[in-house]
């Protein structure tokens, strides 16, 4: 639905995103991708990735025009081969000795910020709308500055904990002293997390461009703290309720039978009933609120994006997707992807000031695929 309102003389129109993908149609693309990937020992996976992305981009419409993914499969394949070699070396290193494993892990960690930047640049430079490319400033020094403080704190934490373990292992004299410092560091890490998430998101948005137009980001650190404070409050409330119910059930069982193994029998079931919704909520809450916070604060040359994902509906989607995929041995994976994309698009829109015709393209070089593919192999999904 489009709604119009006039503000200060300019015409602002709310243009919704539209997703036109069909589960049945995508199933064919997906299964052929899987089969060809297996048949070519993984080589086709680069083409599979491009076709999948092209399907989702192409079916995402804004104001009657589609998005287009233009990555070159050969470039992605090159990145994948290098990533595969690195992955094998890392796996071998960590199996030969924990020391080598830790060393390899450390080196990879040092490269993470660089991968993050390259991955963003690759993805955005290969995203096109109305024949104008998105873009990303490769600013390595500021991303390393953002990572510096958390890395120092985390290293301090790992150092203190390993020292403590060492002292347990070697010092048999009396009970080892648990360093209070560990709690202080843990507290600092927890308190820092929302600030850090803000910094990294802010970095990602502010270095993005559409044509020559910069993205601006109006969310504040405060917004991110609120997001997590609300989460913690709900978690506390849930724990209290679960605690009360659990004691109630335990009391009930005690009155009937004194055998503790009787209760233990039901523990897996109880854990399942409690833990599954708990995780589901946590996942859905974070995914929903983070996305909303992000898109509700992006401004591109006056055009503002909007997102209104609902935690409850996301829980329902996650639950039914997981169930469907598990029960069909993965065959419903395409269906799950399509309905998630459709829901996301349906609640996302842009408040267009005037129209979308005045963006100016800039000439860009092509970004090597290495960064993105490395990020993918080591499981960091950084996309918008």
């Amino acid at each position, binding site marked *: 639905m489009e709604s119009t309102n006039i503000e200060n003389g300019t015409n602002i129109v709310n243009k919704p995103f539209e997703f*036109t*993908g*069909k589960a049945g*149609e*995508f*199933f*064919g*693309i997906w*299964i*052929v*991708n*899987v*089969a060809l*990937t*297996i048949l070519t020992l*993984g080589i086709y996976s680069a083409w*599979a*990735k491009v*076709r*999948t992305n*092209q*399907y989702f*981009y*192409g*079916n995402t419409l804004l104001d*009657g*025009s*589609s998005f*287009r993914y233009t990555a070159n499969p050969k470039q992605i394949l090159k990145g994948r081969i290098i990533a595969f070699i690195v992955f*094998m070396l890392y*796996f071998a290193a960590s*199996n*030969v*000795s*924990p020391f080598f494993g830790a060393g390899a892990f450390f080196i990879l960690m040092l490269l993470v910020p660089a991968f993050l930047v390259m991955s963003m640049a690759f993805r955005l430079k290969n995203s096109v*709308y*109305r*024949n*104008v490319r998105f873009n990303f400033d490769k600013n390595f020094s500021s991303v390393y500055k953002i990572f510096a403080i958390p890395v120092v704190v985390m290293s301090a934490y790992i150092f203190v904990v390993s020292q403590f373990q060492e002292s347990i*292992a070697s010092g048999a004299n009396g009970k080892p002293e648990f360093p209070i410092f560990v709690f202080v560091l843990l507290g600092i890490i927890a308190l820092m997390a929302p600030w850090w998430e803000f910094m990294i998101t802010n970095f990602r948005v502010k270095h993005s461009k559409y*044509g020559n137009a910069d993205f601006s980001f109006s969310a504040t650190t405060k917004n991110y703290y609120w997001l997590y404070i609300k989460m913690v409050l709900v978690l506390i409330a849930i724990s209290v309720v679960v605690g009360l119910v659990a004691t109630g059930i335990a009391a009930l069982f005690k009155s009937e039978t004194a055998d503790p193994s009787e209760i233990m029998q039901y523990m897996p079931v109880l854990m399942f009933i409690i833990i599954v919704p708990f995780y589901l909520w946590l*996942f859905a809450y974070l995914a929903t609120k983070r996305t909303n916070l992000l898109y509700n604060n992006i401004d591109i040359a006056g055009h503002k994006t909007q997102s209104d994902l609902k935690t409850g509906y996301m829980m329902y989607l*996650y639950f039914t*997707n*997981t169930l469907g*995929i*598990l029960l069909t041995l*993965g065959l419903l*994976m395409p269906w*799950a*992807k399509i309905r*998630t994309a459709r829901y996301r698009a349906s609640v996302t829109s842009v408040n267009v000031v005037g129209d*979308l*015709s*005045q*963006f*100016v*393209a800039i000439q860009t070089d092509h970004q090597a695929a290495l960064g993105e593919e490395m990020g993918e192999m080591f499981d960091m*999904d950084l*996309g918008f």
Partner: protein
Amino acid sequence: MIKGSYFSGETSDKKDVSLYYKEDGFVGFYELNIDDVNFNDINISSRLGNTPRYINFPDGSQFETLDNVAIDDMVKKLANDPLHGLAHKLESTKSFILFTVVAVILFGWLFVQYGIPAFSKQIAELLPEEASQYMGQGVLDAMDKGFFSESKLTKKRQNELTQLFNSLLKNIEGSKNYQLKFRLGGKIKANAFALPDGTIVFTDELINLAENDLEIAAIMLHEIGHLKNHHSLRATIQQFSLGMFVMVVTGDVSTSSSIITAIPVMLVESGFSQGMETEADNYSLEYMKKHKIEPNHFATMMEKLEASYSMEYQVCMDSLSDKGNNRLKRIKCINDAVQLSKSESNDNDKSAMDYFSTHPSSKERIDRFRQK
């Protein structure tokens, strides 16, 4: 005539246009005042479902249309490229899709069930002995720090058992660096395991369950079976290949939360592990039959092992004033526990959790040694 939108590539301005093409291979737009372009100089995106098609012109401009049929028609008339649209043909042919689904499921199952284990076995046998030596270095050190303490068995008893171990090794080729070590298990309780470098560790608690040393020999043979079959190395290779396989099949599915792949992977890995336990059991069984050792000893020991984790056994052992130094009292505790667990469990049902276990169910394992 194909209706669509035209974008210059300089700005995001959109023009509604109609594209025409002539038999001589030239393409142009009715609404725009630009020269016709040779068909060979334009780039037409390949068809992908019903997503829009894009035609890119040498000057950087782009034409976008939803009329896939018309574009396909134009490509057929003007281009002589049989490969154009091949992927789409495969992706949209119902019978081919059905065939692919069956083929992928069948192949996936065969590959995971038989392919990965067989191929890991091949590689493990090809790798030099040193590969095993490097693996798991420091595992025993870590376990000594975390769980074990020094064995309380007497030197005499340790020597007896080492002699038994060496007498078993006499008949086994390539076992020169196998060695036996004893530890007080503590939290680990009654257990035995083989490290990739050839060290076999027995806990005092396990040794103390045996009434007859042949029962211990049966377990030693099981652990030797793990070593002979390079199980540590194979498990590592299997884990790696399974990880790669999952990565290849799921591709970059970001919607799949980890649980979707975690559960099947756990099931498959348990299956691999159960397979290797059965192999080690087989090794023990073969050896015992060949060298006229009664296979019942293995079964007896398995029953005791299982019963030793029961509450009743722990209570009985704790009640012994001399901390279990009296052999007869100790044996009575375990035999009582075995009797009790036999009388309690008569159900043959395999519970769902058994599929996640690293070991086959004890009952299955015991039955195999009782029959033969």
